[in-house]
């Protein structure tokens, strides 16, 4: 399995971010894991990073968050992405199973839908699909 440079975890629930960060660390699949508690924090990070920094390969995104939710994050992210050539896989990670939300997320460019909890098996499948 290739090691990714950077994985972002965006979730307002500290427990979820903490567990997922440790799961990814345990699997040894990323050089760096960054956690954000809402979309705005993550967008600010995208805005402020420069080209000398390692690329972001994968984002695990919760949908329901205060301040800036997952949908708003995707809209803001696409506005920023026009200036960038980097390819980032965005995987929606949520406890909600509403079809309406999945459809909107699809339209906003989310590549994968995953139900919580994130597991080693789900990450392995994601890697097989996008990074093998």
């Amino acid at each position: 399995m290739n090691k990714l440079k950077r994985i972002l975890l965006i979730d307002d629930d500290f427990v979820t971010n903490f567990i997922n960060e440790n799961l990814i660390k345990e699997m040894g699949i990323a050089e760096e894991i960054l956690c954000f508690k809402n979309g705005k924090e993550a967008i600010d990070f995208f805005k402020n990073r420069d080209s000398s920094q390692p690329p972001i390969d994968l984002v695990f995104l919760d949908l329901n968050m205060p301040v800036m939710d997952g949908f708003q994050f995707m809209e803001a992210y696409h506005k920023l992405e026009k200036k960038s050539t980097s390819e980032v896989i965005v995987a929606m990670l949520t406890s909600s199973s509403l079809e309406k939300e999945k459809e909107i997320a699809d339209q906003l460019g989310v590549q994968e839908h995953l139900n919580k909890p994130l597991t080693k098996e789900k990450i392995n499948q994601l890697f097989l699909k996008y990074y093998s």
Partner: protein
Amino acid sequence: MPILNLYNLKEFDSALISQILSIYITDVTKDIERLSELLKSNQHEEIRRLAHKIVGASKTVGATKVAEIAEEIEDKAEKKAPINDIQFIKSLNGAFNEVKEHIYKNDLIH
């Protein structure tokens, strides 16, 4: 159905599981207290968001019964349906107390 299924945490050693469960109890205790207040005021969007947060954390640690009750509250708030706050908070607290009892009885936090 077990009150706490630690299958999702199987990759972690007991020290990390202890840390995770300790954070879960602290966070969800605060969230349930806040939810109890919100349920009295019928602020559907805030209730939905907070219930959703409890669902996510509880599913992640494997507290399935807590997740189910919080999901029911989330669903009702989403539909802006009337919520019997006393009944829901009693059920949620009951399930959460069972989780805590299970954790302490099995010495999962040390």
